[in-house]
């Protein structure tokens, strides 16, 4: 396979829009990584999540390894309050269902939608600090 872009411009803008909507709906930070995760996918995903820096605590990272057919969702300490592991599992199912059919960007967008629906919560202005 030749090297190239994972997504078309259209898909990229759709993904960016889905991330923005999810962030507006929940007040949390969402980040999507698509690339190789290596052998220890969980460790690599945690590493990437830590690279988000100051916003990592309120951030949810969706890491997709299309070659290895692995999906990792990592929630930070703050994000976990609104997005528990059960909701992450539901999001993972909705994503992998579409990945199986070869639709990467559509699966990620649907997963973001599922996650943000579960993470939606009333804003507490003195406490929420979305990035």
């Amino acid at each position: 396979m030749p090297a190239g872009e994972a997504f078309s411009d259209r898909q990229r803008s759709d993904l960016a829009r889905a991330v923005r909507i999810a962030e507006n709906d929940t007040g949390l930070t969402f980040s999507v990584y698509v690339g190789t995760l290596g052998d220890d996918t969980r460790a690599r995903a945690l590493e990437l999540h830590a690279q988000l820096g100051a916003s990592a605590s309120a951030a949810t990272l969706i890491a997709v390894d299309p070659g290895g057919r692995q999906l990792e969702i990592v929630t930070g300490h703050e994000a976990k309050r609104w997005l528990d592991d059960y909701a992450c599992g539901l999001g993972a199912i909705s994503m992998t269902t579409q990945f199986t059919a070869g639709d990467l960007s559509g699966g990620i967008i649907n997963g973001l939608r599922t996650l943000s629906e579960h993470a939606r919560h009333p804003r507490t202005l003195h406490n929420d600090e979305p990035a």
Partner: protein
Amino acid sequence: MRKAIRIAAVTASVPLVAVLSSPVLAATRDDGDNPGPGLTVPETLLYFVVIPAAIIALVWLAVLGTSWARAPRYRPGLSWWADPVWINGPETDADGSTPSLAAAAAPADLALADSTGGGARARW
């Protein structure tokens, strides 16, 4: 359903018999027919091989050409070819492109801090 099959079989049988028997009809000369000169070998090849092949190739190109022109798309089970993409990642460059994804050595204490978080994993 059964009736439809029966009707189709009867309807198809008449032209089928006519087509199969047409070489026999051609073998006997009738009054008033005018066969004209036969085709040479190159002409036969042109009419019955080259032109049909060209038409088939044209249709084939019309169907498959569009997918050749497009970028390769992800298919489950095949290896992954593209560079890593990080949407809404750290320090996105000014031009909006993916930040450099240098293999970052995450400090151990950061990984430890994340152990209070959660998440999920899945395979497909």
